[in-house]
């Protein structure tokens, strides 16, 4: 099996295991995996994600470089899904490898924070018979 691209926007369902494998190395004593999942909320039946894929992938790679500058030697891989996602489906799969657990966990949290700030991906909430833009800041 070929290694997955490190940063990807895709309409296909996401898998974490290939990303965990992609960031693992003999130098990394810690590997953290994170899944962003569509959460059940009142009035929500599904989310639709749209992206500017080329810029989103470039932007995720830029965040990874930024975090390596902040937390030391890290390997990151992140895939974001687009299209219609029902409650329980995975929108984001992220894996971080680092020499030690603290940096791996902090970098994973920081990556998601930055992604929500700068990566050109948009979600729309689909409810029963209505559409609205989701309030952000969570």
């Amino acid at each position, binding site marked *: 099996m070929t290694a997955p691209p490190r940063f990807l926007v895709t309409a296909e369902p996401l898998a974490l295991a290939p990303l965990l494998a992609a960031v693992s190395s003999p130098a990394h004593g810690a590997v953290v995996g994170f899944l962003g999942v569509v959460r059940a909320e009142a009035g929500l039946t599904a989310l639709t994600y749209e992206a500017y894929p*080329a810029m989103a992938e470039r932007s995720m790679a830029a965040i990874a470089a930024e975090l390596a500058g902040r937390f030391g030697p890290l390997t990151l891989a992140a895939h974001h899904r687009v299209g219609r996602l029902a409650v329980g489906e995975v929108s984001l799969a992220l894996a971080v490898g680092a020499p030690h657990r603290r940096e791996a966990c902090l970098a994973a949290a920081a990556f*998601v924070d930055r992604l929500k700030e700068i990566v050109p991906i*948009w979600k729309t909430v689909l409810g029963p018979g209505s559409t609205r833009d*989701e309030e952000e800041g969570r």
Partner: protein
Amino acid sequence: MSESLRILVKVKLFGAYRDAVGAECLARELSAGSSLDGLWQELCREWPTLIPLAAARLAARNLDYAPGEAKLADGDEVAFFPPVSGG
């Protein structure tokens, strides 16, 4: 005006910006030296439905965020889009 003083840029639009124009991708011919803001003003003249979206507008040039005063070059890919909400 001579050909060399004109540039051709590709414009990508997302979310409400795409809906306001009714297209996700446009090709625009501009005067050499045009800025990102200049292009935006031109689009607003053609599609006034864009005007209310100006305040929240984010813009990119060749896949990187760019300020309104950024000068455009022939072959550039420009994008206008709303605040992001991925994750």
